[in-house]
């Protein structure tokens, strides 16, 4: 029976606010409080401790000013690109399905900053942010959204299927959870290759209720595959609230079933995401297997641009937009830390806006895919 949504959502809100007081180092699932004499449980605890110890050096590490500025640039770039795509969708320059990443930018930015260019990512239907954070070219992305021949998929895929071998971007996906099994294969590939490459797999809270979540994490754990599972818990699967769809309070807790670390991070804080992913990446590169990171985040808009999201509590949305806006908060933080000046941010914004505008121009001026060529291709098999 669905519970009273308002009550449940305000409860989640409180939980999340409370969690803000925690920092990354003590955000691992607390099993210490559970009373059990089960050996498996004890083993699990000891393996957790081992990981935390191994990562001491990472805890002490700090981001350089340049790294922080890069994080900020990525976050702003995703935001401005997404705002532009929404505008273009409203005037039908972009059609079909568009799932904006507005509000979740810090997850992609932080996570992708923790891996190398040659590492792989597996993305979702809300995937523009992942592509941008992995270094995708905005021109080719926008051209794909315009269905043009110069797009990443030559106009065949659109928003939900952007992929690029050179970027190690193994594809956005139109099927919720569809990328999870694919990450297992990319993980096998990384492991067999033996060069320390890892795979970062993004998926949503909704995907964790699908059977493939279990199949994939179990298999990745059995074979100790170097895969970092980043669950973007934006609290809604279209209209379905996590409170009504996930049987446990925290998705990260599901890691217990696979005897792998499960970590909760504030998905609006790119540095918190970065350090948690980096820790998991280190673990994976050392051959210790996968990790599950749950980034608590929020989809500022509806499921798509025409979804008014009336199923959500207005206060809840308002809270995230005012208190948990990664763009606003990270800008303020870096100014406060004197990493950047207001002027430098303004310059950065201008430069990004220019890049976004250029991508629109590039897309508009690009040729349509050739119909003749299409018919020729499909006449084969």
């Amino acid at each position, binding site marked *: 029976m669905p519970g009273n949504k308002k009550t449940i959502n305000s409860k989640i809100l409180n939980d999340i606010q409370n969690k803000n007081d925690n920092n990354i180092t003590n955000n691992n699932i607390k099993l210490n409080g559970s009373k059990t004499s089960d050996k498996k449980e004890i083993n699990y605890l000891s393996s957790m401790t081992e990981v935390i110890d191994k990562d001491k050096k990472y805890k002490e590490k700090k981001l350089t000013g340049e790294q922080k500025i890069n994080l900020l640039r990525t976050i702003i770039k995703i935001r401005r690109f997404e705002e532009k795509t929404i505008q273009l969708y409203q005037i039908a320059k972009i059609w079909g399905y568009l799932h904006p990443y507005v509000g979740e930018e810090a997850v992609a930015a932080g996570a992708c900053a923790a891996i190398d260019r040659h590492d*792989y990512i*597996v993305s979702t239907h809300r995937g523009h942010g992942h592509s941008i954070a992995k270094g995708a070219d905005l021109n080719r992305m926008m051209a794909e959204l315009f269905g043009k021949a110069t*797009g*990443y*998929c*030559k*106009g*065949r*895929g659109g928003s939900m*299927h*952007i*992929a*690029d*071998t050179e970027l190690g971007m*193994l*594809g956005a*996906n*139109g*099927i919720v959870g*569809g990328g*999870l*099994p*694919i*990450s*297992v*294969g*990319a*993980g*096998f*590939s*990384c492991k*067999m*290759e033996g060069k320390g490459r890892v*795979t970062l797999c993004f998926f949503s809270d909704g995907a964790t209720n699908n*059977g*493939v979540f279990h*199949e*994939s994490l*179990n*298999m990745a754990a*059995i*074979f100790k595959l170097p895969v970092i599972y980043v669950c973007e818990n934006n609290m809604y699967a279209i209209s379905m609230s996590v409170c009504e769809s996930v049987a446990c309070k925290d998705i990260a807790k599901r890691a217990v079933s696979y005897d792998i670390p499960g970590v909760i991070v504030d998905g609006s804080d790119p540095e918190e995401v970065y350090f948690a992913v980096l820790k998991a990446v280190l673990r994976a590169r050392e051959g210790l297997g996968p990790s599950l990171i749950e980034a608590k985040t929020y989809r500022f808009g509806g499921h798509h641009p025409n979804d008014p999201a009336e199923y959500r509590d207005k206060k809840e949305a308002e809270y995230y937009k005012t208190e948990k806006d990664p763009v606003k908060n990270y800008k303020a933080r870096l100014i406060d830390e004197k990493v950047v000046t207001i002027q430098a941010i303004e310059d950065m914004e201008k430069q990004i806006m220019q890049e976004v505008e250029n991508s629109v121009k590039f897309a508009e001026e690009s040729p349509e895919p050739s119909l003749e060529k299409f018919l020729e291709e*499909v006449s084969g*098999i």
Partner: protein
Amino acid sequence: MREIEYREAIREAVIEEMNRDPKVFLIGEDIGKYGGAFRAYKGLLDMFGPERVINTPISESAIIGAGIGAAVTGYRPIAEIMFIDFTTLAMDQIVNQAAKIRYMTGDNLRCPLVIRTQGGAGRGVAAQHSQSLEAWFYHIPGLKVAMPSTPYDVKGLLKTAIRDDNVVMFIEHKMIYLLKGPVPEEEYTIPFGVADIKREGSDVTIFAYSNMIYKALEAAGQLEKEGINVEVFDPRTLVPLDEEALINSVKKTNHLVVVSEACERGSVASDIAVKITAKAFDYLDAPVKIVAGLNTPIPYNSTLEQASIPHAKDIVKAVKEII
């Protein structure tokens, strides 16, 4: 020429390709020490080690997904689904992911994946282990479908499948794993889309594949005694299909019987009948006849099971009806 079992021919193809290309690996259920449900992988774990013979839990979606993920990142996996009936558990990965990924990403991601599986009735294993589901995959753009009938064909086609840059559904038949046939010692491959005339004839063409080839040959033997000269046409791969060779055969015989173990409704057989009727109508002296399985889940009882799939007598009857 030496004669080896169908399953031994599979094993040889796999060994040769794994030795030739270090990127080829195997993944599936019970393929380790057990050697696969039909022992086609016997001894391969010892030969290639657990890194290249990956024995998985019962997770069909993750097996196919693992194949896709490894394929798009440079490997050439052979993912095994023990029974074609179990592909139902991995249909998103096969249909929405594997079949689409190369096209959908503008050729950005190539997926050289072989999905080995087997189907068919005759073993008394009832409705969830006896289906002929090739029409599902035949229907999906982006999948190639091979259905070899002989040890020679299975070896040559499997080697081609492994070298193909696309997704290949490689569908075997559980009743012919122990069947022996001539297979040369020297290396060979068989191209996709090239049919094989299993028996030449001039009066009627019987289109059959997989285990039905043997029923067709049996029928041809019986009909010969009655003076009817039968050509048995084996497409070997359903996608791509050697339409030209089939039309040429029909031009010669002017009669076509299409045989299918799968039930007729929505089948490959009915599609072939339509194609040939449309493209070779002028050469046909009678309507194309279909001999197919009954529209029923495969029963456990042997009498009922045998009654649900075509036999030589059914093919003989069909031929006589149109000749």
